[in-house]
């Protein structure tokens, strides 16, 4: 890789530097240009994918507003440079019908990104869609393909202890959905556990915020 010999003297060093810098600059320029050109498309597609998933997991929702967490821990509407974090679903009349949260975490093979719907008032999940994953096709990919399993997320209640503190969702065979248990699938244990863990830890973050802000947002329907 290194060529110690070769032309010596300041001139040749300068020439080498010059060529390198020139190539690097044009490379950077080309990348920056294409980036500026493709970024809006990428953002739109991203938002679209997540938005479609969000609509699917919020029953009754016809449209949504997108929020992200603000620096003070509250919520603010999504800006141009943000990636969506929370969808608030609105029905035809513009009334709030639910919330969908974007969560992500490590699966078996790679990062899993998903959207899950949650009804903070009723204390239950309203659905789940995996948006991006690279789980083993035919095995772990059931978290995307197995409609029956995906549908159970519309029936899962959040597990609270007596004090109304949220406990973790758990994976079990013969799951009791009332108790926050998710069905196990043989051969896809890891992926199923990952999805459950992602939702569980995301809920721990979001549920307090949602509970606090949900009423306020409902009040702010007209805005």
């Amino acid at each position, binding site marked *: 890789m290194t060529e110690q010999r070769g032309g010596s003297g300041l001139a040749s060093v300068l020439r080498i530097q010059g060529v390198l810098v020139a190539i690097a600059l044009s490379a950077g320029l080309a990348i920056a240009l294409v980036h500026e050109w493709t970024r809006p498309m990428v953002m739109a597609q991203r938002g679209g994918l997540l938005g479609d998933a969000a609509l699917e997991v919020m029953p009754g929702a016809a449209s949504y507003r997108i929020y992200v967490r603000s620096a003070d821990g509250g919520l603010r509407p999504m800006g141009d440079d943000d990636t969506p974090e929370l969808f608030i679903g609105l029905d035809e009349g513009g009334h709030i019908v639910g919330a969908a949260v974007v969560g992500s975490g490590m699966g078996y093979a790679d990062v899993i990104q998903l959207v899950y719907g949650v009804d903070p008032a009723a204390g239950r999940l309203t659905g789940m869609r995996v948006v991006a994953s690279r789980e083993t096709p035919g095995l772990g990919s059931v978290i995307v393909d197995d409609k029956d399993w995906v549908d159970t997320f519309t029936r899962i209640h959040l597990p609270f202890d007596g004090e109304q503190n949220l406990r973790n969702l758990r994976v*079990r*065979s013969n799951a009791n959905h009332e108790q926050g248990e998710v069905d196990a699938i*043989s*051969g896809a*244990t890891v992926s199923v556990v990952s999805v459950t863990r992602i939702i569980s830890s995301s809920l721990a973050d979001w549920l307090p915020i949602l509970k606090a802000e949900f009423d306020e947002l409902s009040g702010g329907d007209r805005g």
Partner: protein
Amino acid sequence: MMPSSHLLSLRGAPHLHADSAVPRLMLHSVIALLPVSVFAVFLFGLAALATVAVAILACLLAERVCGPRSALGDGSAILTGLLLGLSLPPALPLWMVAFGAFVAVAVGKHLFGGLGGPAFHPVLVGRVFLQAAFPSAMAQAWVAPLAAGRATELPATSLALPFLTPDAPYDGISGATPLSALKAGEAGEPLLSLWLGTVSGSVGETSALLLLLGGLYLVYRRVIDWRIPAALLGSVALFSAVLHAIDPERFPAMMTALGSGALMLGAWFLATDPGISPTTRRGAWLYGLAIGLLVVVIRQFSGQAEGVMYALLLGSALTPHIDRWTRPKPLSEGVEE
């Protein structure tokens, strides 16, 4: 390869030093496996018989196709088929059994240079291939022990057409082996039935007691090196006892660990294969220890219910290294080549 090893080692295992060694090994191994095979047919009926028969026939056929020289006479294909059949779930579609047998012999054995060459035990190659290829079938094709009518009819799944999914659902209660029940946090089988073998499981892995007897017979006949199963079972016993002492809720007791799954089958009949196990005594201890540790680690800490097959494969990958570390230093280079 190692000039001095057979001068210093007094092992009785056949290192291909006599022509009669291979058939002798095969013969005694088959004899040692007879009780457990008969018991399997008693336990699972026709399903067990068909699985073992198809596995043996497919191995013979594959041997015939792949082995250019007539190697059918040495009995190794029969033993491979028998062991593979015993290691599979009884209601597995028979075409899968044949497929696995073919992979075992063609890929596991002949691709790696035929008898004496293989780096991995052909049976394990076939078994792990089937496990990876048809995970749902392998996880469900269990048969309840001593089911009524087992002597006269085959499970419908056994007769699935080649390369097709069976019409009928797998009869067995999914995940019904004692180990997978333990993994799911359910109560295990009573210790006695675990050791006698009146439980669900692969065709020939259920009866720890009969396998133990067969293994002892092989030791008595000096066909296998007793150190390997001793070290392997000892290390499984040790590590599971330690884990059980730490958290009895989560980890099964020592005798449960020893009596369940494919442990006995693997320890006596697969790990001891002279082709894949170390050549020195010290190596044999190390090898058994490593596999035992891996068995416990995989069973208790990974997503898999049973770890014996994986542990054995990884163990045989360690063999060349163990041989290297434990090789007696030659007195002088090149005494004989």
